[in-house]
């Protein structure tokens, strides 16, 4: 476990990362804005985000972020192939899953932790599909969704980062993960951001 940035680098990692998956709920919009700040067309990986939103109030996450970043931003479509420099948001009301052939699938299976999309579902499928080639980031949030998924990424040899609960707007989600296992890094947002910037 590493609370400092020293020694942390995603760039030289073997095998090289193929995707970054991110999960968050309450407080997530602000945290995400900080995280993707300055990322652009040179970013070599796809970023997949599950951000919980109330099902009856689908916010236009892709539109909001499209204005904030130079990444390509879109709501994830069924069966589309992953592209670098692209920020995918899970669609409200659907789980988002990563397939072994690096494409995306949607499903309407039962909610997990009262959430659809669920972070666990995305993370567990990413662990399965990419093993050590995926980085999972769990941010501020008000429930325990994502903890089991991040642990699955950890067990499959992937890289795991948890936002430092001390600075998280709501620390339930990061703490739930820390209760299950010791991630590779526990970092404040600005340092997670710096790790991502280094990849460019």
């Amino acid at each position, binding site marked *: 476990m590493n609370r400092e940035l020293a020694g942390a680098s995603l760039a030289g990692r073997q095998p090289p990362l193929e995707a970054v998956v991110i999960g968050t709920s309450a407080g997530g919009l602000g945290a995400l804005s900080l995280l993707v700040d300055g990322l652009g067309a040179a970013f070599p990986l796809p970023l997949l985000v599950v951000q919980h939103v109330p099902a009856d109030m689908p916010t236009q996450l892709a539109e909001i972020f499209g204005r904030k970043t130079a990444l390509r931003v879109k709501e994830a479509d069924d069966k589309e192939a992953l592209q670098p420099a692209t920020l995918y948001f899970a669609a409200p009301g659907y789980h988002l899953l990563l397939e072994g052939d690096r494409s995306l699938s949607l499903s309407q*299976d039962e909610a997990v932790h009262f959430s659809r999309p669920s972070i666990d579902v995305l993370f567990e499928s990413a662990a399965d599909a990419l*093993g050590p080639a995926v980085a999972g980031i769990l941010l501020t949030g008000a429930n325990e969704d994502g903890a089991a998924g991040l642990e699955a990424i950890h067990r499959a040899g992937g890289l795991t980062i948890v936002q430092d609960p001390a600075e998280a707007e709501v620390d339930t989600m990061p703490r739930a993960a820390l209760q299950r296992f010791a991630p590779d890094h526990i970092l404040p947002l600005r340092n997670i951001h710096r790790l991502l910037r280094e990849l460019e």
Partner: protein
Amino acid sequence: MADRNLEIELKLLIEAIYLKYSYDFREYSPASMKRRVLLALQQMRCDNVSALQRRILYDAAAFMELLQYLTIPVSEMFRDPGYFLALRQQVVPLLRTYPSLKVWIAGCSTGEEVYSLAILLREEGLLERTIIYATDINPRSLERARQGIFAIEHLRQYSENYRRAGGKGSLADYYTAAYDSAIMDKSLKDNVTFADHSLATDSVFSETQLISCRNVLIYFNKPLQDRAFGLFHESLCHRGFLGLGSKETVEFSGYASLYEPFDKQERIFRKL
């Protein structure tokens, strides 16, 4: 990376299901298929996928139980009200021009979509000259669809959906409440044929003017999606309508050039 033995066991299970029961899950999206098998494993108290495979091979009732996990029997009345509003306002005026109508609801699950469409067609004065084919692969879901009894606790949500879908009266006009159930007006299904039909293995059975197939194709891989689009194309009359789920489209399929978007937002396409 994914546990290699588990991957092999999953493949064998799906093959066994196909050989024994002719249900073909071989071309479903692997990631969610795996989730559902693992969930079934837990709920059916099997130690591993091989044990589950053995059990379903020798026990048809156990297979029927597994099928409840493999199919996703979740639905809602007037789910995505905008879709039903678009059918009502834009598609119905064109359907009116046919002396008689055939509508196919593929993957109708427990029937919520069927009763929604039947109500809509009745309010538009079309139900009497329409035959609705409601098909699915899950016999238990089909039986529930046939009965048309829904848990009363959902009706508040359904009523709200109905209103937003342009409903002309009150949803309560179409059911009677009994204890914790809502029993749908039986006359709604006078012209409905519920039937076992698989988009993965069966062929077209009728010409239709409208097909509604929602939240079924997302469970298929691309080749199987194309198979389904092939069936729809064969079944639809010239200028017939195809309505899909809110995250489904014909646009990136092998059939893209054979349809035009009719209401892109609501995922309604029209055969060229």
